């Protein structure tokens, strides 16, 4: 199969979706003439015109507000918030309005809104442009959260997000845009709430999100040489979360490591650990470990950012060895 980048997969999905459905339009900062900060909307304004690909003012509240309003009246907006760090600017619109409106009005309206945003450190973005705060949004019922880890999945998940009648927070790790992978031509969907088991193993289960999936896979491959079988699970959507696949794997291995770039406290992994404790406690053979960013702002120093902040293979290996003490 042909290989394209993560970025190209996003552009291709938006392109195909816009061809299929005239109600879809894009709105965001610098997404039109410039093609998006990460070029993930490259060429779409040229193709679909300024009515369907709109550059917005620098106001997240305006972007999300317009997105919610147009969704209510029947459009299918795909809005872009440049960095997930900026979502708190329009937090009320997201978590109190978009997430709850359909419920509070007794189902009399639908909000088929996709909010694309980026997360992740690695480009010197520092404390305001490099966070991975996806777990914070899991707390609010009414928002679906997509966290794709491969070019194949990002394209298929984006189609599913656009088809969904409810608000979807679609998160892309900015360090993955140049990652290449096999991506089918044309239209296909990847379902929400269905995890991908990228690698099977009998000894340890690693649940990893987005970019961390690849670091976990690298460690799993390395550990295989030492005779340790690591199962790597990518949930693909954090909400809905595929608990069944995670628990099934855990019941097999009895050992769990969660790798996630978010800050340590209230991390996505905290939720996974809690699910295990609640639903599979009698299978726990070893401490459930999280490999995460430390609980500090993203440092600007490139050395700190790379060596200390972003979870890496060394950290995952340390966790693996610690868990293996109980094997």
């Amino acid at each position, binding site marked *: 199969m042909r290989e394209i980048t993560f970025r190209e997969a996003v552009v291709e999905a938006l392109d195909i979706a816009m061809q299929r459905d005239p109600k879809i339009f894009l709105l965001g900062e610098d997404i039109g003439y410039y093609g998006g900060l990460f070029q993930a909307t490259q060429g779409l304004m040229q193709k679909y015109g300024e009515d369907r690909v709109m550059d917005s003012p620098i106001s997240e509240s305006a972007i999300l507000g317009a997105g919610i309003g147009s969704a209510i009246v029947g459009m299918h907006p795909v809005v872009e918030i440049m960095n997930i760090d900026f979502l708190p600017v329009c937090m009320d619109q997201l978590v109190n309005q978009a997430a709850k409106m359909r419920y509070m009005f007794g189902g009399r309206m639908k909000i088929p809104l996709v909010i694309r945003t980026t997360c992740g450190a690695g480009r010197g973005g520092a404390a305001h442009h490099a966070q991975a705060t996806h777990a914070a949004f899991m707390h609010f019922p009414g928002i679906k959260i997509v966290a794709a880890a491969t070019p194949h999945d990002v394209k298929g998940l984006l189609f599913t997000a656009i088809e969904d009648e409810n608000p979807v927070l679609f998160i892309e790790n900015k360090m993955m845009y140049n990652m290449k992978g096999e991506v089918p031509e044309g239209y296909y969907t990847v379902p929400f709430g269905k995890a991908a088991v990228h690698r099977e193993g009998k000894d340890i289960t690693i649940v990893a999100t987005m970019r961390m999936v690849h670091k976990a896979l690298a460690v799993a491959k390395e550990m295989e040489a030492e005779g340790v079988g690591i199962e790597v699970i990518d949930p693909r959507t954090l909400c809905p979360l595929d608990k069944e696949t995670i628990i099934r794997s855990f019941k097999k291995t*009895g050992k769990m490591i969660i790798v996630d770039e978010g800050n340590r406290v209230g991390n996505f992994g905290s939720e996974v650990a809690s699910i295990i404790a609640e639903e599979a*406690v*009698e*299978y*726990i*053979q*070893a*401490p459930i470990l999280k490999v995460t960013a430390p609980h500090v702002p993203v440092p600007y120093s490139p050395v700190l950012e790379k060596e200390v902040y972003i979870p890496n293979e060394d950290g995952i290996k340390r966790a693996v060895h610690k868990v293996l*003490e*109980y*094997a």
Partner: protein
Amino acid sequence: MAIEVVLPALGLTVEKGKILKWLKKEGQTVTKGDSLYEVEADKVTTEVESPVSGILRKILIPEEVEVPILTVVAVITDENEKLPEKYLTMGTATPERIEKPALPRIQEPSVLVTSGPTEIKAPPAARKLAKDKGIDLLSIRGSGPGGTILVKDVESFLSMERQAGARILATPTARKLAEREGIGLASVKGTGISGRVMKADVVGAKAAVRPGEPKPARISVKAPSVSTYQLGQVIPMNSIRKVIAKRMAQSKFTAPHIYFFNDVDMEKLLTLREEILTEFEETEGIRISINDFLIKAVALTLREYPLVNSRVSGEEIRIFPEINVGLAVAMEDGLIVPAVPRADQLGLGEIARYRADLVDRARQAKLTIEEMERGTFTISSLAQFDITFFTAILNPPQSGILTVGKVEERPAVRDGKMVIRRMMKEGLSVDHRIIDGAVAAQFLQSLKKKLENPYTTFLRF
């Protein structure tokens, strides 16, 4: 660094122990593995070994004082090390102080301890497995960080138990050598046909035993002294009597007992025994007794009625994972009940050998705690006395006990005619909390049938 010596956990049900004798004096040099003191707990006396080498700096608990398990009883230091001050203030415990909660317990986890674990560390999966299999985690050694008991530790414990129960193939030479060297055949990997243990395997296993490894605690049951009782005499209870008193009262007052009796025609079984006696002795090297048939028949019946092979634990009925039939052995003053392990799976020869060995060692006061605690059902026989039948109190935590009266010739009606048959009355006591009359009756009926049809019963197994 100062190392605390504690009173180890001496058995599954042991809560306290009395220090009988200090074998080392304060200030004396001790080597790791030296016997430090003798402790009496429940019915046994055990020597406790020193966990480290050093100077026995201070004895905190004097002789003849009873303290709970895991109490710090002494402190060992390096040669030039002074006794840390906190032990000075602890002083020496006196019997009066012992009754109070202010015991010199382990206070800080910073000081490494001893022979017995202070707390059980095990992840939930290991706990679950142990619970499901009815294993007490105290009996398992953890190989994980800080002595954590892992799932694999429970599994290997289980497989060791299985091995111990299964018949071990070994050449006679290997068997003899293993016995002489005190090596358990179960622990030797056999290299012969079908895993048969060969002489060379035992020699290899002997060499592999590392000298530094702690030996299992030596245990001896104190043979009670003969005494002539006099009117008006006041007799302090010895520890065996205390245990018996406590257990019998506990059993009788917590488990509502119900009793069942029936008559067993022993004619065929006695005839069978008489017929095979000589040849059995020649081939198996042991004189088979009626008790051996009883043990086997009871074990087979327990297999049919597992509820009778269980115990009450809180609001759960826990069926034992094994069938270990205990045989009450009378001592001069007291009673102990060693058990034949997995009697349902053993041949009569093996049962007879086990029984003879256990009874013999019971009388010599040489049983291990395990042998006394593993029973899941008890047989109590007064057949040697002129007793027709009797009731027995359950041996806790078990839920069933069989009583056996004397065998005597009695008139019986067979095919409408009066004949003389050798008859025996058997009785069953069960815990009515968990075993109802109908189950108990069926159990006893099935046992009777087995004893009355010995060829079917014992040929099949």
